[in-house]
């Protein structure tokens, strides 16, 4: 990929004074008077691979929106690359992959056209030049979708589609990749390939934040787990999480890895 990612890989063991990618401090937020999330402290450094897990309605998506600056905290501070998240205007540093795009399923659009969107924050109202097109081609190659570049995105499988969205983030030269339950509705084999891709991007220095309902995926792939249910129950290395009772606390007593990880 780009040289930017290589240089980040160099500082994969961040010193104490490194600027965090994400820094939520004592954040409360509620859509109404009732808070959805409370006392959220979350610091993510460059090069980390962090998963946020929690049951449905635990505030995972809310935390994601807060740290992306799509929502503003009721109290506390949310910072992205050192800036207040809701005023962060360096959008190309963020790559966002959701379960699905908001457009109708009939929208004709090719994989390449989707990946080109990653360049839009860079070119603004202008045109994509040869250099932009080269970056788009590189991104397609990185996710293994070059052969599908001119295919209509609706003709792809779920796993291929998600890789196209990752390519869009790569084309934007994002430093942080945020994925919101990216493997919902993707077949098991493609899910494995998808996580392999995330791991190799992380090896190249990409900071990854995975919002996930599927506990098994999280425990197998992420380095660090944040377990959420309204507030943070656990924040630490994945193997400690597996041994801890945070899971039972957050998901309810009956939960275990086998049951909760559908």
């Amino acid at each position, binding site marked *: 990929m780009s040289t930017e990612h290589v240089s980040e890989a160099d500082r994969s063991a961040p010193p104490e004074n490194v600027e965090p990618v994400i820094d939520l401090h004592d954040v409360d937020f509620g859509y109404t008077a009732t808070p959805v999330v409370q006392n959220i402290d979350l610091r993510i450094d460059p090069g980390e691979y962090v998963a946020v897990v929690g049951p449905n309605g635990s505030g995972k998506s809310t935390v994601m929106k807060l740290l992306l600056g799509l929502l503003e905290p009721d109290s506390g501070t949310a910072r992205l690359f050192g800036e207040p998240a809701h005023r962060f*205007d360096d959008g190309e540093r963020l790559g966002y992959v959701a379960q699905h795009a908001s457009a109708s399923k009939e*929208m004709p659009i090719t994989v390449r056209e989707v990946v080109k969107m990653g360049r*839009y924050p860079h070119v603004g109202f202008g045109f994509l030049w040869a250099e932009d097109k080269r970056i788009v081609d590189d991104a397609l190659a990185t996710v293994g979708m070059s052969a599908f570049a001119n295919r209509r995105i609706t003709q792809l499988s779920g796993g291929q589609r998600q890789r196209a969205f990752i390519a869009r983030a790569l084309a*934007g030269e994002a430093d942080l990749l945020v994925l919101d339950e990216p493997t919902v509705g993707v077949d098991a084999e493609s899910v494995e390939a998808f996580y392999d891709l995330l791991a190799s991007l992380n090896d190249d220095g990409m900071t990854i934040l995975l919002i996930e309902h599927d506990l098994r995926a999280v425990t197998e792939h992420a380095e660090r787990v944040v377990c959420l249910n309204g507030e943070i129950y656990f924040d630490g290395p994945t193997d400690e999480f597996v041994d801890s009772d945070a899971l039972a606390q957050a998901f309810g007593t009956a939960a275990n890895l086998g049951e909760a990880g559908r």
Partner: protein
Amino acid sequence: MSTAIFGMLTSAGIDPLLFVLQTGVLETVLGPLFWVLDLWSGFVGWLGELTGLEVLAYGFMHRAILVALCIGVMAPLIGTFLVHRQLALIGDALAHTAFAGVAIGLFLNAVIDLGVTPYLTAVVVAMIAALLIELISEATDAYNDVSMAIVLSTGFALGSTLISLNAGGLTVSVNQYLFGNLSTVTSQSAAVLLVLFVVIVVVVAITRNQLLYVTFDETAAEVSGLSVSWYNRIMVMLTAMVVVGAMQIMGVILVAAMLVVPVAGAAQVSRSFTESLFVSVILAELAVLIGIGIAYYAGATAGGVVVLVAVVIYVAAVVVGKLQTAVGEQSTPAVGSIDAERDASSD
């Protein structure tokens, strides 16, 4: 044109405000466009003599054809961005509020002798309504059917009420606004349409990247730093302009069809977004040109015929699309997702 204004001025006793409205702004802005219209008229007339087509011999048809050509470009251009967000209904809602604008224009003309084309007041009212719909949807966090239906009926109710009040003082047929009419496209309203056309095409050309991103994936667009609400506002304002521009021929009731039908047809046969934009414009141009041709010779309402032609074209596009898919599946049987995934991940 200038003698008409002179006549109006003397009869109105030269009110300075009206003077500015009638001559200062409108005539200065539209002046060069009347010259363009004359040029166009000369060209089409020459074309008519050359081909011997009767339909090209009349001045009103020259203007109607120009308006139709513009509709064929701008309606699918904007419609493409609306249809794929499932916002097709917004065109309908804005057309009905534009009808209230027409009524206000007729009312003002009758009461204070304003002397402007009702399409101008329609643009203003429709754009205000568009902004309202957008602000309501931002506040409630969703484009909802109910608020759009309320705006739609309020606009239409206001329009019909004003026109019924008006009827005593002025004998106005609202049919031309409801159903569109080829023969009532005046120079002034054609000039207004040209202004709308240029604004729409220029704004879309500048913001095409942002509009596409917002249409395809609103959240990702917002994360990437685009102000989604601003582009949504631009989009609804452009929609209001298109709807009013196309109303002259299509009429209030059928205008939204031009935003939707050619776009739906193009989606059936196109693979990429760029391709679908061009195809939808071609399909729309076919529909308007064939439509007004048939309407002229059959003496039927242009709006109705154009939409029927567009629907026939849509059905043809569906058939072609199905055939393309069938042929595509035959020639590349290995497009099964798992196999393709393996191929792709190995490179």
